[in-house]
């Protein structure tokens, strides 16, 4: 039995009791982007630092991926493919992040609904580790 490993180092804090997405914040103009990067696309400064992002936001837009993405690059199970939700979540006062959604139902998904960060298993790698990525779920009411 392998471990749970993140899909990419540095994308979110892992392992952690309360993992967070890691973006970067421009120290000159305050612009926040995700994932972390070395230059600021708003003011052109190179003075950026990593920043753990908030875990809640509003659904800005969404779609449902209805067919298996080409593999590669997709690493999920293509044979047992189930449609999945994709959206942008506007993390309060920070940045809009593109993300998988835990819901793929057009009757449930609604622009403006409150969402929160969660983590989902994607696939098992060659070493038997469960590869984890981030997703957003409707906030439990």
């Amino acid at each position, binding site marked *: 039995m392998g471990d749970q490993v993140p899909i990419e180092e540095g994308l979110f804090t892992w392992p952690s009791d309360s993992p967070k997405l890691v973006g970067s914040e421009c120290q000159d103009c305050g612009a926040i982007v995700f994932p972390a990067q070395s230059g600021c696309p708003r003011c052109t400064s190179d003075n950026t630092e990593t920043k753990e992002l908030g875990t809640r936001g509003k659904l800005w837009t969404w779609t449902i991926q*209805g*067919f298996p993405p*080409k593999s590669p690059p*997709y690493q999920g199970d293509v044979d047992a493919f189930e449609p999945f939700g994709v959206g942008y979540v506007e993390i309060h006062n920070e*940045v*809009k992040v593109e993300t998988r959604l835990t819901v793929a139902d057009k009757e449930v998904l609604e622009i403006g609904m409150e969402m929160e960060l969660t983590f989902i298993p994607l696939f098992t790698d060659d070493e038997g580790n469960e590869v984890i*990525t981030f997703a957003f779920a409707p906030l439990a009411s």
Partner: protein
Amino acid sequence: MSKPEVAIVGIGIHPFGRTPERTGQEQGVYAVRKALKDAGVEWSDIQFAFGGSQAAGAADTMVSKLGLTGLQFINVANGCATGGSALFSAYNTIASGAFDLGIAVGYDKHERGAFRVNTRSHGLGDWYGKQGLALTTQFFGMKINRYMEKFDISHNTLAKISAKAFRNAEHNPNAWRRQPFSEEQILESDMLSYPLTKFMFCSPAEGGVALILARADQAHKYTKTPVYLNAAVVRSRRWGSFEVMAPWIALDDAAGPTVDTSKAAFEMAGIGPDDIDVAQLQDTEAGAEIMHMAENGFCEHGEQERMIQQGETEIGGRLPVNTDGGCLANGEPVGASGLRQVYENVLQLRGEAGKRQVPNDPNVAYTHVYGAPGISGVTILSK
């Protein structure tokens, strides 16, 4: 209108769709030979070339088939705006006075199914594609979904765009999908990326287009019906715009590159949207055509619902859009797609578009492309 410095004097096309017996490059060569014949010149007369393909090799290798004349040949790679960028470069090469006669060529041959995206070539990590993001189709679904809610666009209007494309293509012998579909068939086809169904998406395809450009004051040496390039503009995205292949978007909202490109092109030509008689707008899916109508200045946001329901963008309407069936019916061979739009507009301005000719003798025509990771190209043509 500004005094044009550059004219299109010859056009050639290889039919779009699937041509198993020809490589992408051979389709490009075929288009070049057609264009040379149309302009009444030889390959040895051509002084320079700009060419591109995304998936079918370097365009400058065409010289081994067309003739090793020693001309200046520059490869262009700029995503969906590859053709537009080749044309922009050719335009400026003549306008600068460097050369008098040249060619812009684009061709492609893509595998079946949605575009397979190499996230690293977009400067993005492998994680983005591994987890099932990085699909152009998702971006289009998400952009139109938000737009439909914000501006009250109906699902039926999406279907009407696709139905128009296939109906127009029925009269285009070079189009790929020439069978009309009803709005019901379009709405009931597989839901690929909500709210867009299978028949609302264009597919990657094959094809080639070549355009021969000359100094405007020499155009009549080659043709009785020159078409002048009044504007050719390419722009990239600014902070705050919402683009394809974006793991994040800024909190601030800004207009996309299409808005900037369109404004700059109208300024360059010295005219406005009301002066345009026929337009070819990037319609990689039905929602894109709707949103691009407003982004290019042809209407206010939300006005499309009424315009499309009333048929204003049909061939006989006030502003015919995508008269050759657009990307929806022609597919999208990336290198050739933007040049196809110009090819169609040249036919329309010459009055040679056959059964799909727009009535009322058009004088000014407009093309627009949009592509990853947030670029746009616009041309304005006149006769």
